[in-house]
């Protein structure tokens, strides 16, 4: 059939499609559209770096300008993935250096990045603009120096929560004197002092700087100087926010902050001295995002600050805020969309603050736009969860961590099944859920029945039997990521729902009861999955087949078994696959 549109027109139309889903749909229409689309796709997102190989990506999409890649499973954040598991960036960079000379953006999460990779990035991509390293590790400040020195058009350098071997702060001084393109710099995870005068000069000469997140080493008395040079800042992260109280420091701060008419987001606040918080009051009315999760400040001071922020949309805070502070939050901040409350003393035997389920109930009642919650607390009840669910049916993300594993409803001593059941039944748009507390198979029945839009589920110390897991795998139609630890799930549900695993990005199970034999069987049955057994006790062949594996990571892939496995990872049925291919 002849086409009415020339290719160029189709390409022009496709350029308006930014979502991957749309582009993927377009590419399935016909071969011709597949071809046109693949040549004009500029951004790719790889949710699991082992689901595909660099070669396959490059072969299909030859003209990419921006990549986003995720590596280790989420539970790596909590030390559940042994060091050396994988997620190395270098093979990607080395392949892209040859094939994507015009690459502009690299955004990574939980990948192992070396200085060699950073140096290769800095030398291979002439128009390189954006580097975001989120929770990455493996590199030093020398690698940063390469980026600073060689990326002449760099706009964004964001190291959020990465583990950087901090050799010195000298890397910042490698930005050349004629380098002026910086828009965003997040160095909050670094320890070393950078040369302050180099930082000042950098800030002065970059008129488009919108985001500046300093590290702890920058003292509060130096902030005014930076703020004065960057009154256009939209996002600002302080360093350590404490000093001996001196009135001139305070008044300088006040003045400097008032010069920043566009500030919307504040963070940092390590070692906060409460007396310095009021210095920010005159920007608070515009603030939409506040990260006080490192601020060890008591509730009254927090409430003082929050009461000045009526436009607050996102708040991250420690549990020092207490129920009383959350009540104040719910009355002052009617626009609140996201709340995260972190524990100040997670390992203490006794609660150190008066933060209970009540705080969450109050906020869910008072903040009509609240849609995303991460809440650590020490007690919960079904009644509270039911109330929360009824107050706030618009939750998209609900992550509750009751600190003691398997803690029951503290009022009735029953499991929290009905409470979480109410959450999934009422919150029909729920995409992410993290469970905690005492839970039986029943909660999974509720989840399988109601959580039809759920994409990510985190389970710990819950359930009775494989039936629980079966409910989830068979009922949650939108499930993409499932992570499970310390649950009595064996292989029955897994094997019965093996096909489901191909519709998901990944499944993690650690300290469960999945036998080695079952893993082998799963690997044999499902050639398009990598079934990785992670076991630091030595080869599973040295133990009976019925022995449970320590950790299991299953993910769909078109790249076959990994070639970079460490000696504590085995891919099931790898040998058979190799024999047959």
């Amino acid at each position, binding site marked *: 059939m002849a086409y009415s549109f020339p290719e160029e027109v189709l390409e022009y139309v496709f350029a308006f499609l930014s979502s991957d889903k749309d582009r993927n749909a377009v590419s399935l229409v016909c071969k011709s559209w597949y071809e046109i689309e693949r040549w004009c796709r500029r951004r790719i997102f790889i949710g699991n770096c082992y689901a595909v190989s660099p070669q396959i990506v490059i072969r299909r999409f030859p003209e990419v300008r921006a990549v986003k890649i995720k590596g280790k499973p989420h539970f790596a954040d909590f030390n559940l993935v042994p060091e050396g598991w994988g997620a190395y960036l270098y093979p990607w960079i080395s392949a892209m250096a040859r094939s994507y000379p015009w690459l502009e953006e690299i955004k990574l999460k939980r990948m192992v990045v070396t200085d060699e990779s950073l140096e290769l990035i800095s030398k291979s991509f002439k128009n390189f603009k954006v580097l975001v390293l989120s929770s990455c590790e493996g590199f030093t400040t020398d690698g940063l120096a390469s980026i600073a020195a060689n990326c002449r058009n760099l706009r964004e350098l964001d190291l959020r929560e990465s583990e950087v071997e901090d050799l010195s702060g000298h890397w910042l001084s490698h930005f050349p004197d004629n380098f002026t393109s910086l828009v965003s710099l997040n160095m909050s995870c670094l320890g070393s002092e950078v040369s302050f005068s180099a930082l000042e000069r950098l800030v002065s000469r970059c008129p488009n700087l919108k985001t500046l997140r300093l590290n702890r*080493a920058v003292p509060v008395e130096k902030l005014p100087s930076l703020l004065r040079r960057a009154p256009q800042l939209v996002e600002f992260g302080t360093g*350590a926010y404490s000093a001996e109280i001196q009135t001139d420091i305070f008044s300088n701060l006040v003045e400097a902050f008032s010069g920043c008419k566009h500030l919307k987001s504040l963070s940092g606040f390590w070692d906060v001295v409460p007396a310095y918080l009021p210095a920010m009051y005159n920007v608070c009315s515009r603030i939409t995002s506040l990260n006080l999760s490192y601020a060890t400040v008591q509730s009254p001071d927090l409430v003082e600050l929050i009461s000045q922020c009526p436009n607050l949309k996102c708040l991250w805070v420690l549990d020092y805020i207490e129920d009383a502070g959350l009540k104040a939050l719910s009355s002052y901040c009617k626009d609140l969309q996201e709340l995260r409350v972190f524990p100040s003393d997670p390992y203490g035997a006794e609660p150190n603050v008066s933060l209970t389920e009540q705080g969450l109930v109050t906020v869910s009642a008072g903040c009509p736009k609240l849609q995303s919650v991460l809440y650590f607390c020490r007690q919960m009840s079904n009644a509270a969860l039911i109330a929360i669910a009824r107050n706030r049916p618009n939750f998209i993300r609900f992550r509750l961590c009751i*600190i003691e594993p398997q803690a029951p409803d503290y009022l009735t001593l029953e499991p929290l099944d009905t409470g979480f059941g109410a959450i999934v039944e009422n919150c029909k748009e729920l995409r992410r859920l993290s469970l905690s507390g005492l839970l039986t198979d029943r909660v999974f029945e509720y989840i399988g029945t109601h959580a039809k839009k759920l994409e990510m589920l985190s389970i710990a110390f819950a359930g009775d039997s494989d039936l629980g897991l079966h409910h989830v795998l068979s009922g949650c139609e939108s499930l993409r990521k499932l992570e499970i630890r310390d649950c009595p799930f064996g292989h*029955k549900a897994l094997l019965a729902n093996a096909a489901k695993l191909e519709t998901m990005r990944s499944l993690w199970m650690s*300290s469960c009861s999945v036998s080695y034999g079952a893993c082998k069987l799963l690997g044999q049955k499902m050639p398009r999955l990598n079934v990785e057994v992670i076991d630091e006790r030595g080869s599973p062949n040295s*133990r009976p087949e019925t022995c449970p594996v320590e950790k299991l990571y299953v993910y769909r892939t078109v790249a076959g078994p990994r070639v970079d496995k460490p000696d504590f990872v085995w891919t099931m049925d790898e040998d058979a696959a190799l024999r047959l291919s």
Partner: protein
Amino acid sequence: MCISKEAELELGLGLSLRSGGGGGGCVEVKGKGSAWGEYGRILTAKDFPNGFSAGTGRAAAGTKRAAADSVGSAECGSPSTAVSQVVGWPPIRAYRMNTLVNQAKTSNADEDEGVGRNEKKENSKKKINHGSDKNDTIVKERDHLGFVKVNMDGLPIGRKVDLKAHPSYETLAQTLEEMFFKHPSVTIRGGKEQSTQPFKLLDGSSEFVLTYEDKEGDWMLVGDVPWGMFLSTVKRLRIMKTSEANGLAPKFQERNEKQRARAI
């Protein structure tokens, strides 16, 4: 909250794939004693015979590292609850835990191992030395995150070990030997096989020696100071070739080891 010495792997669901049902395969693995032989006991339906009672099996499940709780009463003596013995729970990112530890204001004098400061981000404390007081004397941090990095000469990728899970140098050395050298012997009922002779990292008889970097940035041989003092001063570990360890220099740089070939 201690796990018994003869931790058995129990498969409560006990389905052997070949027989299609029936009894639980039961594997008992005894190692050389203590830490090696202990697998975290995996929660099964057996743990909840009457449905649920709140106190049952709490935090007993966990990974191998947690299982080392049973060794040494020192761990049980600490004021932390069972929660702290479970790896990765509560689910707080290491980055955040390190910062909390650095900012902890209250002292915790009960821990007789001494209060450690085993942050991975060792520099964040060390390099801050501006103007006034501040966080220099945030003395008694409770160290809940006992993970330190361990690198070995010849291996490009390091590992991490949880120092809090060890009451002594011996168990630490044993764990490191298992991690970096051939896996040790496994006793299966009746039989006993020895894989290779064990490498002794502490007594100088091996070609490798265990060293650590302390708070001041100096590299020292492990084992010279009391365990508690070691815990409070160690930042990271390194398994060094004995030949290189003679006359350990301060400010030893462990970088630039780019050998691709693995030592094992």
